Structure formats: structure tokens, C-alpha cells
């Protein structure tokens, strides 16, 4: 093999022009993954800025205070006074746009591509022992589609924003004259294609590029999760595509399908939209669950409990996800439909709980390595369990009438998405950071940041469950005075959360600039990515790797490149039993 294939995939080329070109026209899944990672982190930052803006607006309710001198001051209008096209924007309107932009950016630009397209792209082929994904050109193409769609979304922000909410409900979205709606919807439509192509690529890769000898049940659980996600991406996203296309037609040609003024049905839009967007929330969480399986197995140095149950529960979640969309409309349907969708929704709790119990069983009596990744895995278990258990109350018909469209829903959603996916993503980022950058990060500052994120997150969102049960509706820029103390706690928490995330950013920058070189296998993993160099060479492995053990065989294997003296000894009886075969 020629020399340049043996160097790191991050190594610059001979000239700076060639180096740039090598990134722009790269077919290497790792480089594409790194580009996705950079873009999604930027989107996370943007969406985070809007989140802090929202929480700042909610610090105080809007009210007029008159002092002894008779002077009146108005509080709680932090967003008031923004000027746009020379016109002043009211606080309410600015708030509407801020939460829409927070939602659309976080959902379509960050959380959907974050784990599969960024971390999945980098590690899925390596974990299978492959040189690349099945269709490298399609992979690069989907990255450029992502950039193209993002430009539409960003353009709509500059062009006055969108105030429909990330769900684009009709008839408001089809009739509002605010400039950004069409371009934002087109942006989401285009981003959908990127997601579909990534999904097709990963399914074909898992089917056709596993190293010889690797059966389906020898795959790491992260691969299983990405595979289940890819199925949902491929089968759900086209429906979003056609829904958003019809919404654009509705705005441009007034086709009347969703517009009640023309005889159409706005609730039909909700059915269409949630047929995609409910599977989409599992597209967001299932890859995160895959990361957690890796984090817990590696850092507990123990065979994962119930491998097949975890693998199949991912597929079960994918299957059930297509049958529950109408629970978003439980307050507006016939009783019979509601009963069916309520029952189907409860089913989701089963595969989800299977995973949580298996992770906890894996941790039982293990020797845990408490690095930042593992701290995040434990934070995930705590927050995701709360997020998961607040799902059944929302699926319960009578209770949902009370909780629908309140902060209870906001808190539930954020406990699953942020407390689930984002914490898992951050854990995975720390877990694999040394592998794909070749640099170690500073462990203690990262642990501190993790604790800040964990406390800040819970401070922000836990109180919102109570806000919701007491009747605070979502998407309002102001509220009655009784809610003020709870909103103040929430906003304080969000600042702590943001500080924790900024500390993570500093840790990463410090690592890139001055981090110690990473060994091949810093945490003692048994999957293929820990057998390559850190960072991996251009074709991942010098030779096609040979599969000699399962991904979690800690009871019989000492992980490669690890000092056996620092490692719990394998179970000698099992090793002896294996050698007899």
C-alpha cells in the first residue's frame, strides 16, 4: 500500500490548496463526519443562544410597576425594542420568532444529524471493520445538501424569522405573511433529503460491509442503534418531504388541501406532520441510546447485560414509532381513535424500559471508570428515566386534557431530547474525542463541566413540570405573577447550563491546541475503532481487521493495547472453557 494511505486522515497535504481541496472534495467518511460535527456544533451554539434569549425574556412577567413618585416602569420585556427593517418588533413577536428558531435549528440542523451523520459517519464503518461507507459519493452529496438546506434556514432567520413554531401548523403557517416561512420550510424539506441519503447509505453499509465473520449479533450496539435510526430516517422522512412540499404549494399556489378557507383540513397537516415527526423524535433519541450502550459497557469493563434485548428493542422502538403519531392530537379526536393511539403510545415504554434496566444491570457489581463519558452516561440514565416516565401521563387520555400544551410537555420533551440525546451526544463526544482528534482532553475540567451541565439542566427543566401542572401554557412571552419564582429558578438554571457548555468548549479548544497525544485505546474498548491509530489512518486499518471476539467480551479478553496489569483479569474459568473448544 502506498505511503500516503498510512498517515492520519487529518494530516494536511503537500500544499495548502491541496489541503483545502482534500476537505472540500473528500470521499472519506471520517472527514465528512468531522465536517458534519463542526456544522452541527455550530447549529447547537446558535440554537443555544436562542434558548438563553427565551429564558431571559421569561425572567420576569410583563407588568407595569408604579413607584411612590408616580413613575411607571414596564418589566419583563427583554426582547422589546429590537429593530427590524426600521420597524420596532414587539416583545411577543420577537419571542415567537426566538422559540421557532430555537426549535427549528435544534431539531433540523442539530439533533437529527448530530449523532448519526457526525459520530455515526466517523465510527460506523470503522466499527464494522470497513474502509468506508457503501456509497462515499452519496455521503459527500448528503453533506452538501445539508449545507444547502441550512443556508435556506439561516436565510429565513436573516429575512425576518419565522413565528409559526417548529411544527409549522396550518392554517397559520399557510396564511401568515411573515417572510421567512417559505424559505424555512424549503430548508427543512432539503435537509430531509440529506437525512434520507445518509440513512440509505448506513443501511447498505451495515448489510454489505461488515468484515467477514461478523454476524448481526457481533456488531457493537451503537451500530444496531444507527441501523434502527437509518430505517426510520428512510421510511419517515419522505412523508415530511411531501408534507412540507404541500405546505409550500399551499403558500405559493393556494392548493386548498390544508386551508379551511378553501375547503381543506388543517388537522390533516398535523396527521401528515406527526407521521414523520413522531418517528423523528426516535430518530433523535435512538442513536443516543446506542452511545450509552458503548459508554456503559466500556467504562464498566463488563459484558453488556442483555445484548440481544438491547439490539431488538432499538428495532422495536423503530417499529412502534410509526404507529403513535396521532397522540399529538389526543385533545381533538374521537374517543375511539384516542383510545387506540393512547394504548399504542404506552407500548413505547416497554422497549425503552428494557434498555434502561439492561444498562443498570450492566453497571451492577462492575468496576466503573468514572471518566467524563461515564458521568454523562449516568446523567443520561437519571434524566432520561425522568423524561421517559413523564411520557405515560401524557399518553393517559384524561391527564393529557389537563397537560396538553403546557410546560409539562416542554419539560418532558427536553428531558428526553436534551437530558437524553444531548447528554448522550456529549458523552459520546468525550468518549471518541481522543480517537478522531488524536488528542486527550483535560479530564477534571471536563468532569466539572459535566456536573455543571447536569445541575443546570435539572434546575432549568425540573421546575417546569410543576409550572405545567399548575397551568402555565407553552409558547407565551409573559405569565401571571404567581409563576415568577419558578421561572426565575428555570432561567438561573439555564445560565448555569450554558456556562457548563461553554466550559466544555474551552476544554475542547485546549485539547486541540495543547492536548497530550492520545493512545490507541485510552478507555479499554474491545470494538474495532480502538484497534486503529488515534486518529485513524486514511483507510482506517493497515489490513482488513480480523474478528476474534465479540464487542463486549470483557470476561474473556484483555482489551488490545491495554496493560493487563491495570486491567481486571479475565474470568480464568471462562477462558479455559473457551480454549477447550
Amino acid at each position: 500500500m502506498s505511503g500516503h494511505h498510512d498517515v492520519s486522515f487529518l494530516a494536511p497535504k503537500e500544499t495548502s490548496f491541496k489541503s483545502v481541496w482534500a476537505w472540500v472534495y473528500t470521499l472519506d467518511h471520517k472527514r465528512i463526519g468531522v465536517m458534519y460535527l463542526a456544522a452541527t456544533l455550530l447549529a447547537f451554539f446558535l440554537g443555544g443562544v436562542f434558548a438563553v434569549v427565551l429564558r431571559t425574556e421569561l425572567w420576569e412577567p410583563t407588568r407595569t410597576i408604579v413607584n411612590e413618585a408616580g413613575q411607571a416602569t414596564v418589566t419583563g420585556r427583554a426582547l422589546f425594542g429590537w429593530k427590524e427593517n426600521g420597524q420596532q418588533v414587539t416583545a411577543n413577536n420577537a419571542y415567537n420568532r426566538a422559540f421557532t428558531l430555537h426549535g427549528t435549528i435544534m431539531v433540523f440542523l442539530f439533533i437529527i444529524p448530530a449523532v448519526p451523520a457526525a459520530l455515526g459517519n466517523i465510527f460506523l464503518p470503522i466499527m464494522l471493520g470497513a474502509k468506508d461507507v457503501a456509497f462515499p459519493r452519496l455521503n459527500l452529496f448528503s453533506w452538501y445538501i445539508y449545507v444547502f438546506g441550512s443556508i435556506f434556514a439561516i436565510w429565513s432567520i436573516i429575512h425576518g424569522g419565522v413565528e409559526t413554531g417548529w411544527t409549522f401548523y396550518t392554517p397559520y403557517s399557510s396564511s401568515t405573511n411573515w417572510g421567512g416561512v417559505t424559505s424555512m420550510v424549503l430548508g427543512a424539506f432539503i435537509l430531509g433529503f440529506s437525512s434520507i441519503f445518509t440513512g440509505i447509505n448506513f443501511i447498505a453499509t451495515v448489510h454489505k460491509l461488515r468484515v467477514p465473520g461478523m454476524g448481526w449479533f457481533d456488531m457493537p450496539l451503537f451500530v444496531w442503534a444507527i441501523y434502527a435510526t437509518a430505517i426510520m430516517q428512510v421510511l419517515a422522512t419522505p412523508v415530511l418531504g411531501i408534507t412540507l412540499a404541500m405546505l409550500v404549494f399551499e403558500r405559493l399556489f393556494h392548493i386548498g388541501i390544508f386551508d379551511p378557507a378553501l375547503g381543506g383540513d388543517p388537522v390533516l397537516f398535523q396527521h401528515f406532520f406527526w407521521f414523520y415527526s413522531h418517528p423523528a423524535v426516535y430518530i433523535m433519541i435512538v442513536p443516543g441510546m446506542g452511545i450509552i450502550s458503548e459508554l456503559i459497557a466500556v467504562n464498566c469493563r463488563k459484558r453488556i447485560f442483555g445484548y440481544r434485548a438491547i439490539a431488538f428493542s432499538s428495532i422495536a422502538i423503530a417499529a412502534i414509532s410509526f404507529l403513535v403519531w396521532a397522540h399529538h392530537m389526543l385533545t381533538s379526536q374521537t374517543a375511539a381513535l384516542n383510545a387506540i393511539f393512547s394504548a399504542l403510545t404506552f407500548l413505547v415504554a416497554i422497549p425503552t424500559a428494557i434498555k434502561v434496566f439492561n444498562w443498570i444491570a450492566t453497571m451492577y457489581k462492575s468496576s466503573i471508570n468514572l471518566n467524563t463519558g461515564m458521568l454523562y452516561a449516568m446523567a443520561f440514565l437519571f434524566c432520561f428515566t425522568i423524561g421517559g416516565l413523564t411520557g405515560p401521563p401524557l399518553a393517559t387520555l384524561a391527564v393529557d386534557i389537563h397537560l396538553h400544551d403546557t410546560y409539562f410537555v416542554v419539560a418532558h420533551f427536553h428531558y428526553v431530547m436534551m437530558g437524553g440525546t444531548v447528554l448522550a451526544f456529549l458523552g459520546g463526544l468525550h468518549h471518541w474525542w481522543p480517537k478522531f482528534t488524536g488528542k486527550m482532553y483535560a479530564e477534571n475540567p471536563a468532569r466539572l463541566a459535566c456536573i455543571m451541565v447536569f445541575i443546570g439542566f435539572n434546575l432549568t427543566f425540573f421546575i417546569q413540570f410543576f409550572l405545567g401542572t399548575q397551568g402555565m401554557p407553552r409558547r407565551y412571552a409573559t405569565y401571571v405573577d404567581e409563576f415568577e419564582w419558578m421561572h426565575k429558578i428555570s432561567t438561573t438554571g439555564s445560565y448555569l447550563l450554558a456556562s457548563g457548555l461553554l466550559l466544555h468548549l474551552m476544554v475542547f479548544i485546549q485539547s486541540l491546541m495543547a492536548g497530550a497525544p492520545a493512545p490507541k485505546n485510552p478507555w479499554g474498548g474491545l470494538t474495532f475503532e480502538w484497534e486503529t491509530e488515534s486518529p485513524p489512518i486514511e483507510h482506517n486499518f493497515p489490513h482488513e481487521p480480523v474478528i476474534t471476539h465479540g464487542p463486549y467480551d470483557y470476561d474473556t479478553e484483555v482489551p488490545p493495547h491495554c496493560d493487563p496489569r491495570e486491567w481486571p483479569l479475565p474470568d480464568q474459568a471462562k477462558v479455559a472453557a473457551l480454549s477447550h473448544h
Partner: protein
Amino acid sequence: MTSLPAESAAMDRELEPHERYVPGHHWRNAQDEMEAAKLGMWLFLATEILLFAGFFCAYTVFRYWYPENWHAASRHYLNWKIGAANTVVLLLSSFTIVLAIRGAQTNRKGMMLVNLFITELCAAFFLVVKLGWEYAPKWQKGELPGGFFTYGGHDASHDAHAATEHASWFSTLLSVDHGHYVTNAYDHIFMSVYWISTATHGFHVFAGMIVIGWAMWMAARGHYGPKHYTSLENIGLYWHIVDVIWIFLFPLLYLV
């Protein structure tokens, strides 16, 4: 490695591109590569079906709500003869593209090129009929989607045809005897579903023409042969799905 006589004979002349084909560097062999490409294409076809499922779903909902209206609109606005002609043409083109693939498998370049050309002609015929004999008159009469629907029930061009005694067999074929027609409340939604679904399908036919044209260029340059014709087969699969979607659109819109 000993080479068979046929192989050494092939070595004497300059090899065609398809004979020199090597799979991508990350594939163990060409077989795996082709199977993956076909798997990817089937997944893509599944997304196409789901995309059109949105239209079929909208169709079903409105048909369920306004059955008489939709029946009358279908009878009045759409001419089943034009739809039938296009159906026949698309079915024929699906057959010819299979023959083209057979040509690649049996290493007959002429058969491949002729059949791809016929497929291309059929696609062009479909689009010309669609644009010239359906969209253009509908546009003129104001039979447009939703808010742009201005048709008042009075069919001026139809009257003009009836008035002239010189109506040829061809124009007779294309005209539908509407009799007296009073527009219904939801005709504009029927036209919306008609326009967006057939236009999206027409766009797929157009995209098909581009990729079939590319396949002709590849075939002419010798890139397809018995051992390598992956993209040709995938284009064939795509073309079949375009055909199948029309097979559903035609009866639902024109006949039912």
C-alpha cells in the same frame, strides 16, 4: 493462473470499459458492490412510494368527504383516453428498458442502445401529451389548483370544436362529451390534487429522461456489459417505479 482460450482472445484486442471495470477501493468484490447499489436503490424506491403516499392520502381523505363531487370532477375535467394513451406508452417503455438491460447482460450494444432510445421516445411522448393536451388547455380554461381555479363551467373551446364541422378524428378522440356541467364546491381541490400529483410524477418522468440519456451515453461508450451494468439496472428500477406510480394515479384520477 491459467487463462481460458476465450479469455486470452479477449486479451488480444483492446478491452471495453465494462471489461476493465474495477470496484471501488472499499469493496471486497464487484458482486458485493452491485448488491449494495441495488439495495440502496430499493430503499430509495421505498422513499419514492412514501413520497407519493402523501398525495394518495390527501386524495383518499377528500374523496371520502366529497364523493359525488370528486366523481363528477373526475368525469368532467379529465379525459380517460389521454390518460390511457399515456399508460400504454409508459408500460411499453418499461418493457423496452428491460430489453435494454437484457442487451447489457448478453453483451449486445445495439439492442441496448435501440431500446434505451425507444424508452426515451416514450417518455418524451408522455410529457408532450401531458403538457400539450392536458396542462395547456386546462391552463387556458382556468382549471387550475385551489385559489387559482377560475373555471366557470362554460367550456368555450369545447363549443368551438362542436361548432366547426371540420373536427378531425383526432380532435374527436381528444374531446370528451361533457354535456351540461355545473361546477361543484370542491372542484378546485380535485384540481389541486390532480396538478400536484401529476406534476410531481411528470417531474420524475423528466428526471428519468435525463438519467436514461446518461445511460445511453454510458452504453455508447461501452461501460455496460455482462459483468457490469449496475447503474443501468438501477435506472431501470427507477423507471419501473415511475411507471407503477402512474399505474395508480391513472385509475384513481381518471377512471374511478
